[in-house]
């Protein structure tokens, strides 16, 4: 798999354990404009569940999973509102 989405920001959380990838996502949400995509790249298997769950709880849009250039799992989020962490 390779990148399927054009994202405004990609967060490298490859080596971070749970729950750091979701924390990084919350920290950097405001770095993209409303309507833009940002992605979390993480090997942590919990991220596959926690990124969509975070989107639901924070009312942001979970776009889906693809992969970074090196094949690492990547989770894509669209910022749809101003609220962040």
């Amino acid at each position, binding site marked *: 798999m390779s990148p399927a989405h054009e994202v405004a920001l990609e967060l490298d959380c490859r080596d971070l*354990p*749970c729950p750091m990838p979701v924390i990084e996502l*919350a920290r950097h949400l405001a770095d993209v404009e409303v309507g833009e995509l940002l992605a979390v790249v993480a090997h942590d*298997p919990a991220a*596959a*569940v*926690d990124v969509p*769950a975070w989107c639901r*709880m924070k009312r942001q849009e979970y776009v889906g999973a693809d992969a970074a250039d090196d094949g690492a799992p990547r989770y894509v989020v669209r910022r749809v509102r101003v609220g962040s962490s």
Partner: protein
Amino acid sequence: MTAASTGPGDLDSASSAPLHPAAREVLLAALDRGYADPRRLHRAGREARLLLDNAREATADALGVRPDEVTFTPSGTHAVHLGLLGLVRGSRRGTRVVHSPVEHSAVRHAVAWGAEGDDRAVHVDRQGRVDGGSLVEDACSPHVGVVALQTANHEVATLQPVGELELPNDVPLFTDACASMGRLPLPDGWAAAAGSAHKWGGPAGVGVLLVRKRARWRNPFPGDDRVDERSTGFENVPAVLAAAASLQAVVAERDEVNARQHELVDVVRRRVAAEVPDVEVVGDPEHRLPHLVRFSCLYVDGEALVTELDRLGFGIASGSACTASTLTPSHVLEAMGVLTHGNVRLSLQRGTTRADVDAFCDALPGVVAEIRSRVGL
């Protein structure tokens, strides 16, 4: 004198409950009376046999089954393995097991070891309730020998529709009743079931396997020549008798205890949702085990949460990926699609009071805020 190891802050009965007072006396008396081999015909042997038979009858009576349907095992896990795999071995249809994605790991390990099966076709909703329709539909496919569905979920308390399944003819149902046995009546419709005594205030090391009289069950493991043809190894008569005494007591007091615990868990659900920001209380709010609740706090490391709450005197379980040795998220929470980190599973003891619950709810927001502040959130 050292401090008591348990107290009002032990809110983890679902992992293991302290010995019920009714079991303690019975255990102490039976240690002296029930040491002998219950197969022997001499006086001491007959005494042990009498206690073992008493335990079987009391257990059957408490659970509403026949005494010859009750087998004592060395653990709840072993009862799950025996019950499930024995139905697979007895099946004429095949060795495939259809099970839900939220079963206890004992079921998953048993299937991986001695059967075939997966949970991909069985749906579960966000509250952890298994869709009985998808389970029945999958059970109609070829080579399905057994269907497995828990009575209630051990992580999120949601009750499952065990008694409502209309399975195709000849496909027996195994139900893992470890989370609910004693606390709730058994549902209908199963061919074999399993329970675990230390979850109802009996001693550890006692499981209960129930096999219906007409079920096609064959021992999946090497047999033995004990009193009960389904069991292997020397019976722990004192522990089994204490487990039965505790079960009787729990069943006798459950209307009162369940009503009280259901209300206390409602307090926890309400207060946690209102007083901790960015938290999700999961599991069915109504159709659930009376004593158990689970919630997840965003951005919080589960191990830190357990440690900090323990420092304040509260014992809770966390199934967070961050605390598990495997670093894989809970398959139950994953199947439900809810947050897998920052989890608390709180389960009340029979003596837990409103004051104990309020003390926990008073302490929690500060603990969560402090852990979040470590990462600047």
